[in-house]
């Protein structure tokens, strides 16, 4: 037996933990990690339901999420490096110059 409800709950909890990380942590890198965690939670859900319905569609979603995640991380790290070069800081509170 596979405890589907439990796995869905796990996925949900992971997603919310990721979101909370994004919202709470000030370090851009940690925020990025939260983002990754959210993505992973989504992948878990896809895999679970792929198993439930016995088809491969969920696997492909997972696959493409990996692709997107890879690109996303690459881009974000590039941006982070640029930002860091400007202010030597990774804290979001340093980057509030859009205000007014």
């Amino acid at each position, binding site marked *: *037996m596979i405890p589907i409800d439990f796995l869905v709950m796990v996925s949900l909890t992971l997603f919310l933990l990721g979101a*909370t990380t994004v919202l709470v942590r000030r370090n851009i890198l940690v925020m990025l990690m939260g983002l990754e965690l959210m993505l992973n939670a989504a992948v878990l859900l896809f895999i679970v339901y792929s*198993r439930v319905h016995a088809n491969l569609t969920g696997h*492909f979603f997972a696959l493409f999420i*990996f692709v997107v*995640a890879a690109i996303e991380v690459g881009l974000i790290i590039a941006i*982070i*490096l640029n930002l860091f070069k400007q202010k030597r800081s990774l804290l979001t509170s340093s980057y509030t110059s859009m205000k007014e």
Partner: protein
Amino acid sequence: MTPLTLIYYILGILTIIGGFSMLFAKHPMRAALSLLFVMFILAVLYALLAAPVIAVLQIIIYSGAIMTLIVFIVTLLDSKEDDLRKPYTKCVYLVTFLMFLLLLVTMNLLPPATFGNAPMVDGNIGALSKELLTNYVFHFELASVLLLVGIIGISIIRAGRGEKQ
């Protein structure tokens, strides 16, 4: 409760612990390692859920490539200062809790998944590749284009700026 089910529970609880550990980690490196841990456990879960290819890719791409990159950047930039912060943190926790409730409600609204010993789908590399190169070939190509665009984007963000300056 069969032993397999028990394993599911244990793995699930482990991932959640890993997630909390990431959320509350003081040092970014510790957060990164927690995330790495979560990803490994998830890979095991995928393997159990008849998705061996995804499990392997999870380890190679996420744990291998992405997390290595993140860890590398963390060590490179080495910014220690970080803390759970500000009065508004409470508000965030409240929101998160609300979200949790909401998702629970939504989940209950979904039609219940009937699941006993459903037939297992063949999630091996052969079946997956066949499907990927026939039905999903267009999406596959799109993904490759996306990767290309991403590479160009990264090089512009990094190199393009340097040129101007």
